[in-house]
């Protein structure tokens, strides 16, 4: 390719390169946005594109991956006080200061030295309970000693308050600011993952993988028939498959729903709200893949299979031993295409699947977005996650995307 080029052409080449980079940036920008949103604190769709260390959080990812998120929330209605206790021991009393409703609690006596020796990573666990009645004022330590004790145990106590219903709630003593001039009672607020995102991801992968595999099986065998055999109605079926494929499946949602409702009453595993039914409906999209594979088969010289037939191969052997090994690149392409289109498909899946634990990721992640509350951050994390299996499948399939498999077999 060492062709001599005019100056003019070099400028145009540079311009084309520039255009390509800008174009790529435009394509990549939404992906970067989503990644940025998934790391951003809170659920905001607007903000910095490049997340900074201070404003970043892994909370959205934890929730997406099914891990509870802990938040220390200051309990403004509580004051820290200590009750008089034996030597070396302390009893913490969180009292209601009247600003916010707060149910006071009192801890069991704990060893101060032991508490001092603890760290914020390994806190001293202390049990506590709601007292029957407010202790007498004389039982409390004075303010100076209280402040000393508070400083000593701040960030080192994990107070588990037994609630009436038997569960416990965890409280901590933390400084209100970095300098540690004032202290407050903090409650450990646990946010459980709102949705089973990993389960959805597994559902998606399962459905997409089985669909793609079945599509490969169906499409290769049908394409072989269409490419190599002459039968009545061949052209008609081929054309009508192409034409019917032009109507989006969304148009037939009602029909699909009704159909699978009826199928389900005979074979429940293929009916509504089942992955079997969903896979069956996706297999309807096999027509385009048949066309793709048929086009590839037609580039392979039929004399190869005729030679195999003379060598004693049955049509199935000729197909499996000669044609299929030569068609691996197109099979990889079709597998990837079928996999991607299945994993990103929403309308049909959203109609056929109902139970929360049956949803695919593409459908399920929309649960994060409801008009009262758009959980953009959580949604973004789930969205990025849904791209993961596609990427992995593509990387795995790439090694099969090789050219020149048929080289040398026939005189070109």
């Amino acid at each position, binding site marked *: 390719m060492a062709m001599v080029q005019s100056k003019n052409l070099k400028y145009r080449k540079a311009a084309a390169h520039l255009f390509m980079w800008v174009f790529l940036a435009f394509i990549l920008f939404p992906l970067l946005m989503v990644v940025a949103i998934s790391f951003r604190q809170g659920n905001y769709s607007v903000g910095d594109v490049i997340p900074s260390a201070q404003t970043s959080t892994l909370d959205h990812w934890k929730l997406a991956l099914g891990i509870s998120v802990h938040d220390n929330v200051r309990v403004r209605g509580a004051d820290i006080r200590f009750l008089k206790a034996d030597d070396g021991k302390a009893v913490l009393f969180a009292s209601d200061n009247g600003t916010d409703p707060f149910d006071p609690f009192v801890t069991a006596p704990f060893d101060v030295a032991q508490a001092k020796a603890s760290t914020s990573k390994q806190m001293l666990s202390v049990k506590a309970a709601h007292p029957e009645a407010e202790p007498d004022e004389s039982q409390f330590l004075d303010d100076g000693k209280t402040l000393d004790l508070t400083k000593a145990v701040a960030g080192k106590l994990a107070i588990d308050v037994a609630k009436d219903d038997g569960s416990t709630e965890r409280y901590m003593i933390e400084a209100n600011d970095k300098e540690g001039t004032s202290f407050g009672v903090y409650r450990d607020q646990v946010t459980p993952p709102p949705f089973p995102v990993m389960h959805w991801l597994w559902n998606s992968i399962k459905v997409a993988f089985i669909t793609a595999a079945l599509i490969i099986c169906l499409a290769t065998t049908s394409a072989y028939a269409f490419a190599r055999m002459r039968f009545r109605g061949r052209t008609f079926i081929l054309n009508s498959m192409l034409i019917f494929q032009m109507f989006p499946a969304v148009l037939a949602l009602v029909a699909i729903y009704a159909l699978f409702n009826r199928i389900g009453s005979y074979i429940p595993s293929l009916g509504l709200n089942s992955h079997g039914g969903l896979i069956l409906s996706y297999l309807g999209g096999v027509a385009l893949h048949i066309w793709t594979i048929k086009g590839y088969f037609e580039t392979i*010289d039929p*004399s*190869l299979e*005729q*030679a*195999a*037939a*003379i*060598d*004693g*191969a049955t049509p199935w*052997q000729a197909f499996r*031993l*000669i044609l299929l*090994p*030569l068609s691996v690149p197109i099979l990889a392409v079709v597998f990837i295409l079928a996999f991607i289109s299945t994993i990103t498909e929403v309308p049909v899946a959203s109609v056929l699947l109902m139970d929360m634990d049956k949803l695919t990721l593409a459908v399920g992640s929309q649960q994060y977005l409801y008009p009262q509350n758009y959980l953009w951050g959580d949604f973004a994390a789930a969205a990025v996650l849904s791209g993961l299996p596609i990427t992995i499948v593509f990387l795995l399939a790439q090694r099969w995307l090789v050219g*020149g*498999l*048929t*080289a*040398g*077999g*026939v*005189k070109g």
Partner: protein
Amino acid sequence: MRQIQRHKMADVLLSKVRKNYNPSVLKDTLRNINLDIKDGDFIVFVGPSGCGKSTLLRMIAGLEDITSGDLVIGGKRMNDVPPSQRNIGMVFQSYALYPHMTVFENMAFGLKLKHMDKETIRQRVVHAADILGLEPFLDRKPKALSGGQRQRVAIGRCIVQQPSVFLFDEPLSNLDAALRVRMRLEISKLHRDINATIIYVTHDQVEAMTLADKICVLSPLQANAESNLEQFGTPLELYNHPVNQFVAGFIGSPKMNFINGTIAEIGDKTCKVKLATGEVLTACVDASRGEVGQKVQLGVRPEHLVAASSSKADGGTLSGKVIVTENLGAEFFMYLDVGACDEGVDFTIRHDFAVDVKSGDNFTIGIPAAACHLFDADGIAFPRTAVYTRAER
């Protein structure tokens, strides 16, 4: 050692074979083909493109069904027997090697499908590779081979199956000229060594003349013709005694010259023909079934023409204007406009040496009477009473 065990007897007999691709349309591709091919014969099907020669071969192979008629191989009717059980081997024009297999696997494929034991397979493949000089390439994929080597692998794939009939479908047409000549010789040697029946399709009549024991000339089927099998005979039979104008024109290179005329006088063993230009030529043919005044075409091969002054020019002379000359060194071609040929057809002369003429010159050529063929208006040849050989000159 170039030796292979004798194959079992395999006469191939075709009787009244007909092929029609689309029975709803009464347009046959082949009609009324009768061939009796003896065991060990090298048969060449030759004809212009579209004459159905490849179809006929594929019908023998079983890749096309036979519309009507019988195909008998080795005494057994094979019409409804699948290709793999006909005991034939076929070499395709495109070689049709399996690209994802090595040369060894390519040759062993059919044997593996027959569940032969590994040692026998290895022996047969190595033996075939030895015959074809393919041993160094057994581990290579076809794409790492040259055209000639690929062709040999395709032949080797047949040999290992030890078929009784080898079918070659234009096997050399994809090779370059030099390699074609070499492979032609190799195939000829192969036939001598394995002594199997070979049926070979080509459009190249040089291949046909050099390789064949017998040639079968096919023509594109005319609408109401009885058959499109024109002639079946040895190469020299076809060259010297073509039964009709089609065979005469097809066999021989350059093509035979045809001159329009009418019968002027019918002699005992000769016939005088008056050309459209007025010249009268004598031909050594038995025209007793013709009559004076009948329209005929006189054929004479370019290589049989002699100088006008030669004593061999006993058939008469013909003169015309030189259109083009071609000097190939070993031979010299001259194209004349003699006026008596069909419109747009030049009269070709082949000389062994260059003649000093230029385009536009007038030139006179001598025609030996013994070299003339005569065809009636339907193209059927009158029997020749003499055969001209150039050695006589």
